[in-house]
């Protein structure tokens, strides 16, 4: 930073404006250029290399070719469980999250009293540290005796086994994840408030009813927000870690049904110390994320509507 000042103080004639801009641009960006190299580019390349090795983090990595990848797909049922659970979670929870967040934002957008109060309440769960959220959920979802069992007990039923049996654990986590859609609600709400009123007025003149206004005005204008939500939540769902990890201690209990991809990866890296193997998992995740994101980007042409083009 001190150098930036010095550069400026140099006689102007010596350096053209373009050169000065380049020097200053690089200096101001230098923390991030270093950070990018040290914390992003180098580790990404290193992890690609580790993924082809046997490596316990202490002794030097030993080159083993693609054997980690082969092992993952042919000889690791836990890996396949983790993939299944994670894909299940993403495929079920993302559409539900879009529907609920959009729906609640639509209702909030109607000029009603206490809008800010509602918005605040919906946003609160996103602020809670995951530890607190996971613990209170664990307590509420105690089968047969937790708060969640109360309505079932009222009818003399036992209710589902929630997080303690394999067939319910996955849907329960999907349900729980729907609590954390406050950010998306705010995004949709912001998007809705940007819909130009004259579009609705024009639709009124054409005699459009509520549904057709929703379908032909509201949804198209909101597609960029849905797109953003989709892209970010795919990444979020594939990285789902803290909540299931805290709730189960990372065990994947019951019957590996809560063993998510990130949890299994973490365990491989830091419990079993097979860091090459875990790196292979990380790279598979990276490639998968890229492919899915790319597909969504490509599909955007077909369904995302940009009013007046992008910036």
């Amino acid at each position, binding site marked *: *930073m001190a150098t*930036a*000042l010095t550069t*400026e103080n140099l006689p102007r004639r010596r350096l053209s404006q373009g050169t000065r801009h*380049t020097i*200053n641009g*690089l200096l101001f*960006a230098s*923390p*991030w*250029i270093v*950070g*990018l190299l*040290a*914390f*992003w580019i180098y*580790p*990404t390349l290193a*992890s690609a290399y*580790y993924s082809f090795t046997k490596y316990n983090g202490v002794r030097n990595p030993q080159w083993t070719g693609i054997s980690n990848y082969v092992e993952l797909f042919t000889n690791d049922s836990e890996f396949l469980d983790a993939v299944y659970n994670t894909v299940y979670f993403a495929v079920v929870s993302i559409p539900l999250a879009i529907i609920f967040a959009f729906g609640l934002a639509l*209702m909030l957008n*109607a000029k*009603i009293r206490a809008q800010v109060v*509602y918005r*605040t*309440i*919906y*946003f*609160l769960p996103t*602020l*809670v*540290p995951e*530890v*607190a959220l996971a*613990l*209170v959920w664990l*307590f*509420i979802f*105690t089968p047969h005796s*937790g*708060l969640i*069992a109360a309505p079932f007990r009222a009818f003399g039923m036992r209710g589902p086994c929630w997080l303690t049996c394999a067939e319910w654990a996955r849907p329960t986590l999907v349900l729980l994840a729907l*609590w954390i859609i406050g950010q998306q609600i705010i*995004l949709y709400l*912001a998007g809705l408030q940007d819909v130009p009123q004259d579009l609705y007025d024009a639709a009124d003149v054409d005699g459009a009813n509520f549904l057709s206004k929703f379908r032909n005005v509201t949804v198209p204008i909101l597609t*960029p927000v849905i797109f*953003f939500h989709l892209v970010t939540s795919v990444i979020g769902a594939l*990285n789902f870690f803290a909540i299931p*990890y805290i709730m189960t201690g990372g065990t994947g209990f019951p019957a590996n049904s809560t063993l998510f991809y*990130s949890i299994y*990866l*973490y365990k491989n*890296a*830091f419990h079993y110390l097979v*860091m090459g193997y*875990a790196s292979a998992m*990380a790279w598979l*995740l*990276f490639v998968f*994320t890229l492919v899915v994101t790319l597909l969504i980007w490509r599909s955007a042409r077909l369904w995302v509507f940009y009013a007046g083009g992008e910036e």
Partner: protein
Amino acid sequence: MAVESSQLPSTLADDQSKRLLIKRVKGMVRSVLIHAGLIPAAFVFLLPFLWMLSTSLKPDVQFYSYPPVLIPSPLQWSNFPDAVTYITFFLYMRNTLTIAVLATVGVLISSSLVAYSLARIPWPGRNILFILTLATLMLPFQVTMIPLFIVFKNFGWVNSWLPLIVPHWFGGALYIFLLRQFFMTIPMELSEAARIDGASELKIYYSVLLPLSKPALATVAIFEFIARWRDYIGPLIYLSDQELYTLSLGIYEYQSQYGAEWGLLMAASVMITLPIILLFFFLQKTFVQGIALTGIKG
């Protein structure tokens, strides 16, 4: 009535008031329906908090009582001092605060400098750097997790706070993006005028840009502070000495050692959640703007 009336103006007025009435009734029905949807949703969203708070004031015997007790009597206030003692709450709070404050200061300084370079200085490489910055947002943290751990281990930084603080002094991609977008909205003429006056870029940065960007900087500060306050996986990977634990890790470890002491655990949960909720209430506007700002580009 309108038909019988011979006076045209009054017919019109009648019609108008009738239409107004219909419109008002329609509006009322609509808002009742909307509240009928919003209120149950609000209840569902609030339930974990209410139950957390309620349990934090319950004696052991009431944890699973049926029908559920929302307001326990007597109130078991002792859960709070117990949580502070047994979970060593203040130690963990001091640790968490130290990490969160240092990381936030670092991310603010570095990200704003970088965003300034990307938004306000025309230099050849800046578009490539910007694209790289956005690309890192697509990268799952698991990809860099293992090599970074090895690097920090070689530095002797494992089991210290450094891996949780130092990287933030080199900028955060999301914040650089957010601040860049904000800096771009500030008229270029301000910078050009200052340059003509002979001001250095550093001077323009701190005396022109920063004062005009307080809302965006506040957003970055709050987001980062809360992210570090809530962070779980970072401390989980790097901290093994109990004296270094953060609140999230400490509470988790307590639960995994001593199990379902729900009164204590919920008291601790209330205590780590409350500060953020208070922060949110006071700075609600900054939050909402910030979220909208990160989501502008679809």
